[in-house]
């Protein structure tokens, strides 16, 4: 038995048929082909599957797709604008915060959730916000630095507004 639902993913409405036991992660990767969201531990330990669900960072592997009717989802594919990468993505590249890259989409989404709520976080607040995301390459220092760089309000003109997802330059 499949379940029909309508979900808004990266601003676009999608009508999906999902199995009752499929997770939001399954739906994003298998139904919509949005493979930027990574399948890691599958049990909520690693944070590689982090997406924004109605504005909050969640592990998409621990959310049933069937329970997301009408929800707004943002994945890594929805972070960059037409004009180019989001300032967070630019900062990750500039700081060398990406090595193998597997954790990066989840890190960016967790960081985005933080910056939308708290545009000028402290080092401790960044570490707290990223505490549900594992990285086995970088040692975290460069990731934290990248988020702090991107948090400079002058770099992120859209933060604090609903359209803050998109860089306005």
């Amino acid at each position, binding site marked *: 038995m499949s379940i029909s639902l309508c979900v808004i993913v990266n601003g676009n409405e999608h009508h999906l048929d999902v199995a*009752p*036991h499929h997770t939001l992660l399954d739906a994003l990767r298998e139904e919509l082909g949005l493979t930027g969201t990574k399948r890691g531990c599958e049990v*909520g330990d690693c944070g590689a599957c982090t997406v924004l669900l109605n504005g*909050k*960072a*969640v*592990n998409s592997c*621990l959310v*049933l797709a069937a329970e997301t009717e009408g929800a707004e989802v943002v994945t890594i594919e929805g972070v960059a604008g037409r004009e180019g990468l989001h300032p967070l993505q630019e900062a990750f590249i500039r700081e060398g915060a990406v090595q193998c890259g597997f954790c990066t989409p989840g890190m960016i989404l967790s960081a985005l959730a933080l910056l939308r709520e708290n545009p000028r976080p402290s080092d401790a607040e960044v570490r*707290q916000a990223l505490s549900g995301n594992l990285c086995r390459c970088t040692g975290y220092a460069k990731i934290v630095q990248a988020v702090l760089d991107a948090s400079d309000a002058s770099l992120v003109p859209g933060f604090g507004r609903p359209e803050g997802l998109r860089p306005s330059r």
Partner: protein
Amino acid sequence: MKSFVNVNPKSLDEAVAVLDRARAQGKKAALAGGGSDLLGMLKDHLVQPDLVVNLKSISGLEGVHREGERVRIGALTTLDEIARHPLLVERYAALAQAAGLAASPQIRNVGTLGGNVNQRPWCHYFRQGFPCFKNGGKMCYAVAGENQFHALFGGGPAFIVHPSDTAPALVALEAEFKVMGPSGAKIIPAEKYFILPREDVLRENVLGENEILAEVILPAAPSGLRSTYLKIRDRQAWDHAIVSIGAALEWEGGRCRKARLVLGGVAPIPWRVPNAERLLEGKSLGEALARQVAEAALAGAQPLAKNGYKVPLAKATVRRAVLSLLPAA
């Protein structure tokens, strides 16, 4: 994961009826609040329900509400909301702190108070599907196995520790739980909600198969009440407590009028330590008394082969917690 039928009840009564009907038909039903714990259990094949009842489809089970001097918290309120709620942070700090220290940011955004209280144990033997008591088997593998994280108190036949951070805080704050069942609502004091393995090794609480935890009620917070939750863990994020404490002290004129000290991570239920509480009552607090309280709290601990380190750790945690609650001079 084995598939199942999703059920989206619109009311608690409807949800209870679904559970009742499933039981009558010999079907297994599982409740999903945030679903974080349930999905982990499903993926590990520890539960294989025929029905998953989505409690999020019921309106009115979320939110923190003042009712006179009491506070009602819907069981589906997320841990994140509880951790940040100004009234809880100010008056019921132990609960807000416990919610904020549970799991990871992503799980706190989805995970609910009811789910945190009712989550199944995180004993690695249980979660890895060993045929242990908790999985319906006939032994506790921790007794002669890797028992670093197991119980000091109340163990037998299973030696799990209760994994919830909010539960010790709620017992310390004298919360009550509103449980809905076929014959309506009943109110159960938090302290009576949790049960030892020797009472029923397959459950951690009194909740029946056709019952739902609907609400947590916090009593009036008297002036002079100070509370805290301290959690000691291996890593600083996303880990369960090795030891923890929910502590609530009421002060009057520099003396402790009433004390509630509830240890987490050391027993199959939130473990209240009345002998330690009594030492505090009627006294003003200093370093020496805090040490005596800590000794009393751990008196009678029965460590297994590999968890003896928890005893001094728990003593230090108790001492630190009570000293942090000294009344403002």
